[in-house]
């Protein structure tokens, strides 16, 4: 018979003698990253490799400190790196819809922006003064007057020559005409016809000649005017270069050696010269829509035009902070790749290069960009946008409409910016494996995975390190220091969080929450430093805030709504244990499992599966039972039973195989007609060899049954059978440990089904003797005898040609005749960590609540829903694939 565990095996206390400090104030800060050597090496590797594609995916459970570790590491690294460049967008004078990009050393982008702002002011003043000066006016008037005089002179020559011939120039509605004059008036047709023919011909010839001269003159006029404009233009350019050239040259010299800036400034100079008249037209707007809009909105038109000479400093650095480390909290497509904003003006949307806004890729260029993978993937097209940028090695600013070719209206196409950024994504492992499996580009773009662990080894050195970590967190959050025994309590709780007495949790988020809550407790109690009592108070308070449903389930069990026996014995009935997870809070609760057997064809029917309330792991566990029975008993004859197993009062789903040992005990009890002690509850999965295997949630399960026993009064012979492999996971509540120490409650580590059935029935399990038979008074002997009897009946029925199924009632009655009665199906509960079939925390809560309500509802004829998942694998694994 297995001995119960001594109390010291139920809870591993922190060795205070190893903690040589009074409070956490005595401990130095911890700079190193705790227990993440593998992940840190990966981070260091990803940062160190400069080639494309070596971006980092930091995977680990929530609260494992991925972000803080990576951030801390990157901040330190980035501070030692060269500062990133500034990036500016400027007007493209050749192609206004494709703004040019300029790369400048850190700090010089903003300087260029300010410089150009001043330059524009200087240019405006200088050009206005130059073109309003008397010197310019005189020169321009001289040119225009020269052309005008030339025109007048030539025209007057024609006019005077005609006048000498008594011919005048007459203005017509459409032009000019020559007319013979007499006494200052045009000669009438009658007078003309009276003239001699020779005279008439002379006049006509003269007029024709003058018409030719006039036509030749008019041909010349546009050319003269063009020449005049050219000369004025040349003058303007000379004047403009005279005043603007030195101003721009001074700026050019300031940016010697900066690629692109010199060319841009030369383009500015040329553009200023080309648009002098526009620049002087202070009452008219510029040519761009945005300038026009600014004019309409009341801005000075010259200012609107000079907007083209401004600089949009897209990304600016002050040059002293090293490489940028940017965390994008809202990684939408536009927030990532940048955007071109528009202004609504007169019903139209207009834009220019000044409205280009940077995305986080731009801000992080030359450094590091950090994002949460789930947030990134849930934003439409953000993932595609990021991949495209990384693939192409440049950041292209475009709208979704442009990217998807949905919009064909003309907008800006800013020149792409070369990208050298290291991207770090944070996500849970499930997401990482999904991406690896489903996105062929992912492994190419995120070659490095930093896999963060959620636990560390608990030994003396580990506890000391953990104490320093706690001290660091306390100081970081400006909390009260913790006394030594408070630190010990936190360490113990940390072990409980990972359900392992030999490990500590490095998911620091719940630990930090505990520290903050303990600080609150200490404040309420007026303590200068947190005591162990404050920590325990915080733990108890957190449980109390979350355990309404637990209390409700316990209450309904006490009231008899949920049928759980904790005393006496029953045949074919056992107490299984399940865990219900409500968000961050989990609690255990016993479930009644029953079994009934009769003659059949070797079927062990899982009723949960029949009604589709059992998950695949649970069904697997039940099917293993048939394998166990078939392999152990009456192996020379067909298994001739029909057994049904059911989780009583379960109205939701059942998942996990941690109930399989309980179900087997129950089945054996029914077969052997041996009553099972109801003061014991059972958890553990079983294999076909009858070995009991580890399960998850062992602490909650024990405490769940313990709480019910305490509520009903501890009898002294109550306890829980757990897999022996789970012993090192025990970190039980103090009340359980004290009850065990007082001999009022017992925890039995069970390695085999035989060990367990002996505890449950009080009879020896029995082993095959030299003849290969189980002794008759043993459990195994009775089970085999029963199965042999069923096989005999089946064989005899077969010989009679009767249908065994048709005789089932008789066979069952036979069982009754054997003194076993109509087997009241025994039950044994089991279950690992609860997990509803429907995904999502909300569903979990609902189904858990429904489970509780269902228990009440069942008494009223209602129906509830709930589910539980068992299996050690489900606890340690990351998903369904690893469960079981």
């Amino acid at each position: 018979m297995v001995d119960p565990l001594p109390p010291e095996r139920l809870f591993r206390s922190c060795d205070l003698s190893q903690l040589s400090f009074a409070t956490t104030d005595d401990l130095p800060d911890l700079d190193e990253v705790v227990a993440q050597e593998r992940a840190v090496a990966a981070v260091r590797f990803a940062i160190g490799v400069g080639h494309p594609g070596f971006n980092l995916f930091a995977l680990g459970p929530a609260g494992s400190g991925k972000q803080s570790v990576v951030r801390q590491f990157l901040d330190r690294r980035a501070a030692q790196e060269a500062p990133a460049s500034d990036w500016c967008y400027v007007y493209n004078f050749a192609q206004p819809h494709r703004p040019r990009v300029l790369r400048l050393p850190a700090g010089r982008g903003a300087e260029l922006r300010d410089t150009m702002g001043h330059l524009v002011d200087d240019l405006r003043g200088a050009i206005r003064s130059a073109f309003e000066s008397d010197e310019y006016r005189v020169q321009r008037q001289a040119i225009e007057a020269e052309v005008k005089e030339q025109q007048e002179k030539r025209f007057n020559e024609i006019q005077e020559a005609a006048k000498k011939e008594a011919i005048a120039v007459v203005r017509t509605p459409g032009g000019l005409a020559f007319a013979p004059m007499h006494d200052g008036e045009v000669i009438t047709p009658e007078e003309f016809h009276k003239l001699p023919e020779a005279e008439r011909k002379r006049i006509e010839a003269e007029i024709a000649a003058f018409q030719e001269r006039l036509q030749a003159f008019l041909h010349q006029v546009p050319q003269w005017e063009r020449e005049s404009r050219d000369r004025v233009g040349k003058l303007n350019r000379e004047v403009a270069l005279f005043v603007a050239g030195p101003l721009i040259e001074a700026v050019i010299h300031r940016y010697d050696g900066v690629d692109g800036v010199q060319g841009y400034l030369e383009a500015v100079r040329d553009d200023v010269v080309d648009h002098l008249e526009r620049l002087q037209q202070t009452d008219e707007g510029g040519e761009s829509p945005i300038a026009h809009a600014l004019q309409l909105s009341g801005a000075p038109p010259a200012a609107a035009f000079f907007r083209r000479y401004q600089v949009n400093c897209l990304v600016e650095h002050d040059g002293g902070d090293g490489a940028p480390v940017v965390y994008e909290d809202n990684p939408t497509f536009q927030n990532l790749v940048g955007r071109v904003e528009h202004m609504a003006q007169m019903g139209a949307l207009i834009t220019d290069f000044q409205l280009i806004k940077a995305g986080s890729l731009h801000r992080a260029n030359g450094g590091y960009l950090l994002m949460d993978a789930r947030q990134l993937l849930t934003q439409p097209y953000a993932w595609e946008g990021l991949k495209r940028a990384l693939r192409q090695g440049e950041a292209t600013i475009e709208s979704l409409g442009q990217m998807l070719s949905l919009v064909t209206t003309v907008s800006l196409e800013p020149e792409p910016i070369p990208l050298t950024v290291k991207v770090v994504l944070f996500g849970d492992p499930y997401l990482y494996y999904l991406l690896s499996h489903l996105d062929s580009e992912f492994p190419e773009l995120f070659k490095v995975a930093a896999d963060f662990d959620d636990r560390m080894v608990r030994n003396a050195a580990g506890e000391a390190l953990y104490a320093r970590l706690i001290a660091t967190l306390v100081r970081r959050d400006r909390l009260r220091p913790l006394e030594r025994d408070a630190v010990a309590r936190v360490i113990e709780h940390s072990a409980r969080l990972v359900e392992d007495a030999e490990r500590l949790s490095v998911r620091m988020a719940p630990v930090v929450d505990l520290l903050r809550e303990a600080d609150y407790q200490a404040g309420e109690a007026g303590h200068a430093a947190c005591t162990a009592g404050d920590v325990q108070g915080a733990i108890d308070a957190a449980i109390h805030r979350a355990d309404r449903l637990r209390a409700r389930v316990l209450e309904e069990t006490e009231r008899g709504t949920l049928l759980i026996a904790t005393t006496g014995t029953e045949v074919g009935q056992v107490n299984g244990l399940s865990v219900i997870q409500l968000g961050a809070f989990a609690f255990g609760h016993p479930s009644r499992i029953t079994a009934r057997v009769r003659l059949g064809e070797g079927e062990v029917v899982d009723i949960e599966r029949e009604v589709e309330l059992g998950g695949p792991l649970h069904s697997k566990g039940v099917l293993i039972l048939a394998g166990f029975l078939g392999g152990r008993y009456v192996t020379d004859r067909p298994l001739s039973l029909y057994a049904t197993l059911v989780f009583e009062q379960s109205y939701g789903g059942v998942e996990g195989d941690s109930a399989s040992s309980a179900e087997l005990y129950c089945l054996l009890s029914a077969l052997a007609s041996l009553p099972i002690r109801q003061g014991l509850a059972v958890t553990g999965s079983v294999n076909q060899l009858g070995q009991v295997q580890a399960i998850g949630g062992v602490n909650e399960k024990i405490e769940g049954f313990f709480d019910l026993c305490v509520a009903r009064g501890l009898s002294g012979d109550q306890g829980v059978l757990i897999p022996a492999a789970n012993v090192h996971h025990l970190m039980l509540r103090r009340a359980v440990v004290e009850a065990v120490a007082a001999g009022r409650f017992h925890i039995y580590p069970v390695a085999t089904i035989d060990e367990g059935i002996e505890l449950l029935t009080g009879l020896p399990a029995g082993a095959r003797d030299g003849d290969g038979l189980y002794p008759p008074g043993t459990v195994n002997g009775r089970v085999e005898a029963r199965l042999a009897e069923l096989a005999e009946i089946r064989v005899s029925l077969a010989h009679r040609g009767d249908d065994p199924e048709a005789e089932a009632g008789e066979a069952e009655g036979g069982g009754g005749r054997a003194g076993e009665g109509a087997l009241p199906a025994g039950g044994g509960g089991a279950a690992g960590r609860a997990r509803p079939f429907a995904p999502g925390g909300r569903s979990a809560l609902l189904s858990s609540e429904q489970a509780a309500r269902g228990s009440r509802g069942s008494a009223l004829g209602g129906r509830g829903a709930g589910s539980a998942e068992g299996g050690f694998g489900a606890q340690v694994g990351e998903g369904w694939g690893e469960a079981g």
Partner: protein
Amino acid sequence: MSEGGEIRRIVVAVDTSADSLAAVGAAAGLAAGLSAELHGLFVEDDNLVRLARLPFAREICFSASSRLLDAEAVERQLRLLAAAARKALERAAAGRQVACTFRVARGQVAREVVAAAGAGDLLILGRVSRPLFAGRPSGSTARAAATSAASSVLLLTAAITLGQPVVAVYDGRELARRALALAVRLARLQQSSLTLLLPPLAAGEGAALEKSVAVALLATGLDFTLQPVRRAGRAAVAAAVGEAHGGLLVVAADNRLLAPEELTPLLDLLTCPLLVVR
């Protein structure tokens, strides 16, 4: 200050040139401000009509192409121009709620315009009726009217802009006083300031003139500036008008600036309208 030289009838010579349309708008505005009647005149150029009837008459367009002149076509074009002129005048007059008449005369344009001026107190016309080339500043009709019309003459390039200062040349003579009175009225009408250009006189004479006119202008309540002109002549006056950003130059008809040989160069220099006061 006496405001003699009442203007009751305004004659405006209308064609469809830009200057002329400006003249129509300004004439309607002035007529409303001065409570005067408006009489429009469109002159069909008799020389053009005669020319069109000559068998060899050809028209040279500004594109340098030529075509035969058709008498009927010319008559039709003149009728259309007259109708457009009438419409422009009537629209401007209706806008200002001014009574107006319109008539079409046929003859020599300058002669008809000058003759029509005698029937009114003020003749308004554009400085150039359809300029031949860009920059050609003044036409023969405008020059003839400025020098020969019996009434005051306003030569316009664009509408008188409200708020721009009125500039007047004042030498203290009788006609200059009438010009000053009219300038004061126009400044009030436009709610603009008045700049008075004082030509060089003997020292004592100049000071006395300045003092007397200052006293007179103070009584008007106008915002005014007295601006002595150091040198006589059109260039100095035109420069002073430019410096004052003048919107209208008012000159007495007997001023030497308007002598026939001076008028054309003065008009070439001026960028604002010119009002010749008689």
